[in-house]
């Protein structure tokens, strides 16, 4: 439902942002109209892949079913999901995302290294909605 926020498979999966050619500011979700740095004369906004790895800024979970437009099957019992806010060191920004399936708050700590992986937000008979997820690097081995 959002175009151009991520691309690639497996090890090559990356979040996509944009970078201002004049001031080097990076934007995620991508900013395609104007650079938002008020001190910048404005430059071309070029697509740029974000760092694959970062550190946990904070985390939490959702123990109650969120309302629409989040899509979940009301017939099924609610499975809490974990959310992780991740600091990307070279872009110096924090990106929020769901954790990979099975990662709970008990597995996480502020400062822990995580990496971005492709994931599925939900699927129905006709469509699979893909997304990005954060996963502790320790569990990849």
């Amino acid at each position, binding site marked *: 439902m959002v175009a151009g926020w991520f691309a690639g498979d497996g090890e090559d999966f990356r979040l996509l942002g944009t970078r201002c050619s004049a001031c080097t500011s990076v934007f995620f979700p991508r900013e395609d109209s104007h650079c938002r740095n008020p001190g910048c004369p404005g430059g071309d906004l070029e697509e740029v892949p974000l760092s694959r790895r970062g550190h946990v800024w904070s985390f939490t979970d959702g123990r*109650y079913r969120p309302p629409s437009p989040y899509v979940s099957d009301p017939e099924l019992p609610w499975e809490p999901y974990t959310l992780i806010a991740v600091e990307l060191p070279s872009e110096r920004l924090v990106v929020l995302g769901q954790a990979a399936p099975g990662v709970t708050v008990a597995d996480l700590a502020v400062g822990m290294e995580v990496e971005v992986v492709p994931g599925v937000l939900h699927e129905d008979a006709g469509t699979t909605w893909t997304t990005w997820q954060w996963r502790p690097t320790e569990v990849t081995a």
Partner: protein
Amino acid sequence: MTQDVAVLGAGMHPWGKWGRSFVEYGAAAARAALADAGLEWRDIGSIVGADTVRGGYPGYVAGATFAKALGWQGARVASVYAACASGAQAVNTARAQILSGLADVVLVVGADAAPKGFFRPAGGDRPDDPDWLRFRVLGATNPTYFGLYARRRMAVHGETPEDYAQVKVKNSAWGALNPYARYRKPVTAEEVAASAVVADPLRLLDICATSDGGAALVLAGLEFARRHGVTNPVRIRAVSTVTPRYPNTVLDLPDIATDSAVAVQPAAHTFRESIAHAAYEEAGIGPEDLSFAEVYDLSTALELQWYEDLGLCGEGEAVKLLREGATAVGGRIPVNASGGLASFGEAVPAQAIAQVCELTWQLRDAAGDRQVDGARVGIAANQGLFGHGSAVVAVR
């Protein structure tokens, strides 16, 4: 420094889930504020309504909606929307009219009938709306952001869920003394700990509910107040309505990511700090001058964040302030003597106005059992979705 405006009247409709229209709550609060001011609705030259988006079409035109309910009388009218900061911006609009000479006396009204459960964005497929996106893409409700802030504070400052429970214990004790509050029962730490986790580490009793409610103020120029026989009114000395500064580096509702600090160093103050800072500068005071504060305690952990953002203590010292009782009854700087959102719940366009009602009652020495001794200077602070900062300084 701008001139003061006088608070002639303050009024509320009790908060709760009453199942009636926001118009009813707003009109009742307005009538209470008018009666408190000793004025007739026909004496009012201007009305400013704080908008709600959950009242259907009339909610978007709150000023005129309240004016119609009170009886059309030809007043100047304005409607203001700034999410949780709507009430403060309505106060500011009234103040601007008074100080510019457009109006002598202005009625400010905010009211809402909140939905059940989580707040949610308006319907439709709207991927250009950050509020819609965070729900659709992440399922990130308001409490999940509160949980993120709380976990971060625990990691950085060593706070515990037991500390957060003490904020609820404190605020609920005050709320029990406030006839306008929705929750009138003191809560124990054990009750907080026994309530369900909503967003780790926060539990149901750490997070404010949604409520119906209404609040109103009658504001006037000091000359009008004198003519009206009020020589020493509570005065609004500052209203801050600032936006963040780029780069905003704290993950804020409803955003999925922060700004990048790669090209520009972050400002000396975070957004929430700058909200208070702007109000202090305009009022010509500092945190050391405050007698008490009303802050937007959407969660217990967020109240602690406000202690630091208001400069009541240094960074990371909020929990010390809480533990030593400085922000409780009889403390050096009582916070949320009204009971706060913990006791009221959220009625978005009314809450910032309700905060100023509490400032008014405290500064009049009319807050009854929850009175802060010797209250001379108070601040109310909140933050509205999409980058609306708001703080009000009132003095007597």
